[in-house]
């Protein structure tokens, strides 16, 4: 059982790290601000989400697990809104950044 949980943690955190890597590559390589934002959102929700998911079995107690999930939810909320705000500025001013 413990081994299964460990494997689950390793797999989920590795998948999360992969999304972080992919998002960073996208941020550096994509041509314009909107696609770069698109790459970043993957990091926010999938990357962090998978890492939180992988760490859940390691949290001591339900409260700590809830804290992890709420960190993810807060990052989701703020990430989505900041992305929207940046995208609006880009659409208004054109993509000269």
């Amino acid at each position, binding site marked *: 059982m413990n081994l299964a949980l460990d494997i689950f943690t390793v797999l989920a955190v590795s998948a999360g790290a992969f999304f972080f890597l992919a998002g960073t590559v996208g941020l550096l390589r994509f041509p314009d601000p909107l696609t770069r934002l698109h790459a970043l959102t993957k990091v926010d929700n999938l990357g962090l989400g998978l890492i939180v998911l992988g760490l859940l079995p390691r949290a001591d107690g339900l409260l700590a697990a809830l804290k992890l999930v709420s960190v993810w939810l807060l990052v989701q*909320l703020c990430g989505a809104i900041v992305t929207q705000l940046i995208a609006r500025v880009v659409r208004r001013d054109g993509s000269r950044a």
Partner: protein
Amino acid sequence: MSAAFDIALVALALALAAWTIAFRDAFAAVIAFVAYGLLLSLAWVRLSAVDVALTEAAIGSGVTGMLLLGAAARLRRTETPVTETGTPLRLASGGFCAVISACLAAVVLFASDLAPTLAPDVMANLAASGLGNPVAGVLFVYRSLDTLLEKVVLLLALVGVWSLAPDRLWGGIPGLRVYGQPSGILAFLAQVLPPIGIMVGIYMCWTGASYPGGAFQGGTVLAAMWLLVMIAGLRDIPAIGSRRMRLLVVFGPVIFLAIGLAGVGLAGAFLAYPAGYAKPLIVAVEVTLTLSIGVTLGLLAAGPPERMGQR
């Protein structure tokens, strides 16, 4: 494994610090500075100084970052193309910085073997104050005069910002830019986030007596929520002449000072607490300070007055 993490952290922090200096564009440099502050707070966590980490993230990175962004936005209008400095001046400043770095390195490398520390004494006597967090103990019991003066410095900083106002705008409304849109997604954030943020701020202040946290960190979170609501245009920015604002700003320091003065009569020394009442008094001071710090930091970030309110 953890050594590898630490080395990577230090390398990243140094790289970001260099980036902050190297960047010509003020805006990009400020963004790098904020990221640098967050890395620094991670470093404090690695050193098990969670109180310092929270303060660094909240003040060093958050509020300072916002103040610097405001300054960068103001300076953008006046920014002139960078003038090339002459070689002698460059050499002189480079040499001067090298001397300072060498002196600092010498102080760190050739420090006396045993640095004098009072930490064991603090831990031995902490129980008498009823507090569980040694940092709060040092701040409010052993070094309470420093803590009091720190709050007064914050007040002076606010007076300094306000004094930038031209005479005709004295008592007017700070020039914080408002991004209020009817469909505004920012307005949505400013409605959803503050209930959570205010709870976190109050929790940080309350838990500060026993665990990492405290008035400064809690107050900063409260200030951030207030600023968010003002920037989204959900609440008006108060005029700096408003009596209520001014009372809130001095409320914490005045209560702190009053309790300190009462200590002269009741406990025999300025800022001493009567036996058995230390913890309730400290918590009372922390609560009032949190409120005052929140309002003061909010007004600091809002800047000097730029228009008069409708009377």
